[in-house]
């Protein structure tokens, strides 16, 4: 079988499962909305940053980044459940290359993760929290794709390496949450203590959130070209590592 039907098959599975499970969709949207509305309004009165930027406007792109990070990591780590529940064997024993499996799984999860983020973005546009024009929107899509695809691959790499789902909580506490908190999604990166600033500068999501702030007319910090370059590099590295780990994994 040529590669593309297999990729399509794996993509289709992700999309069908996504469309079917409404409660999971609502569940996964609840946390970002909570952060945006409650934190956004709660801290709003104490927030002073560059003239007329309100806090809820400031964290908007950050919350989009959070949605992408969480859904991409969880989606990629779904491989762990497929491993645990045996479905992975059905895929691995089929006459399909692992590269095709990994590609289909990644594109499928990127699709569902971006749909979530776009729903949130649409809500923010409707509420007037972000200003958007066509060029900015296309640029946002590119950043969204890079964030999502990178973290799906990271999720797949981790899931390939782990043997059972017990480590999931560790990943949540030691990878996903730190990446989120240290990304500048919730606070500006200027005037941070030195050690914290270094950590945020090492975090690829920082550049993703910053890139989206630029594209959505928010208060950005780095040049969008720097953001793009860092993310492209991160994406390529994660794809390589994910593919390597996935190929090495035994059922």
């Amino acid at each position, binding site marked *: 079988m040529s590669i593309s039907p297999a990729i399509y*098959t794996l993509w289709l599975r992700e999309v069908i499962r996504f469309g*079917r499970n409404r409660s999971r969709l609502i569940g996964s949207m609840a946390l970002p909305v909570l952060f945006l509305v409650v934190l956004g309004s709660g801290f709003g009165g104490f927030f002073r940053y560059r003239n007329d930027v309100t806090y809820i406007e400031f964290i908007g792109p950050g919350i989009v980044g959070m949605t992408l990070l969480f859904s991409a990591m969880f989606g990629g780590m779904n491989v762990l459940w497929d491993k645990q*529940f*045996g*479905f992975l064997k059905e895929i691995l*024993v089929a006459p399909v290359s692992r590269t095709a499996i990994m590609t289909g799984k990644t594109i499928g999860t990127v699709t569902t993760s971006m749909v979530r983020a776009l729903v949130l973005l649409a809500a923010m546009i409707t509420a007037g929290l972000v200003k958007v024009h066509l060029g900015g929107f296309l640029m946002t899509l590119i950043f969204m794709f890079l964030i999502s695809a990178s973290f799906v691959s990271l999720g797949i790499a981790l899931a390939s390496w782990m043997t059972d789902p017990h480590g999931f909580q560790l990943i949540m506490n030691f990878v996903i949450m730190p990446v989120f908190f240290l990304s500048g999604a919730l606070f500006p990166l200027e005037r941070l203590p030195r050690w914290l600033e270094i950590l945020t500068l090492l975090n690829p999501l920082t550049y993703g959130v910053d890139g989206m702030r630029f594209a959505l007319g928010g208060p950005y910090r780095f040049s969008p070209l720097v953001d793009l370059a860092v993310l492209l590099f991160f994406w390529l590295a994660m794809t390589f590592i994910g593919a390597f780990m996935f190929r090495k994994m035994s*059922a």
Partner: protein
Amino acid sequence: MTPYGGTASTIIEIKEITRQFGELTALNSVSLDIERGELFGLLGPNGAGKTTLISILSTLLSPTSGSAVVCGHDVRKDEDMVRRSIGVVFQDPSLDDELSGQENLDFHGRLYGLDRESRRTRIDEVMRLVDLEDRRHDLIKTYSGGMRRRLEIARGLMHRPQVLFLDEPTLGLDPQTRRKIWNYIRGLKESYGTTIILTTHYMDEADQLCSRVAIIDHGLIVALDSPANLKASLGGDLLELETPTVHPDFVEKLRNSQEVRRVSAHNGRVTLTVAKGESFIPRVFETAQSLGMEIASVSMRKPNLEDVFIKLTGREIRQESITEPKERIRIYMWGRRR
């Protein structure tokens, strides 16, 4: 003779396969030929190496040493061609719970490169074969254990493999469902001429279904023959006598009869292996009477594969109960999948 040394009808050729997991030797230089169209059984207790052998033959695991050829393709060098020619029903469940029965089959058909039309007709066909037509649009999470198993068997057949591996196809199922699945398996062999290799630790399953059985224990094949021949190798029927007192000469006298293969006495219970059990019973009574001995009861049964296994290994194959860990995990997983 084929280039690989087997006869033209050999479909699987296993040569001195060894597989080690660290210190543990799961398979110890196993060699075996399986003929086209056979319903072949790998019988042995848990941990004997059955699943390891299936995993190697289906390219999921590579052997530490040795070689295997499936449908003319080397499992180490030509994985893709092997995968195309086989179907596998794994011991552990391997369906996607959040897809319907039909979607699981459709997914499988797509992975094996079937076009839309063949997917449609074959899904109809295999659904009918396993009687799941009326449940095809239901999600797998609503299926019972037996239905899942049937669907997995149906799925394994969809791409018309030359060889179908069934790893413990009836593990954890109730007797009625097991019988149903046996009928499906027999049906497959008749309708498609598929070569079927099944592993089991149920004696009756191997006995009822398989034309040939390899008894495997601690990674070694300890016997290989048809169930009838394996049972015949014990040398006859089993007679069990109960008596209040065993006369000292009784066992000796019986042992001297030509028909008797083995005698053992233990706690007023005498067990005999006899060529023709039915016609030997009167002789037992005559012998007892001549010694003034009383016999409380006699029972006779045909030997089963369990007896063969005990003779070969000196141990019983444990009949698993529902509380064994493996089983519990399986149920747990079915109960709360995602």
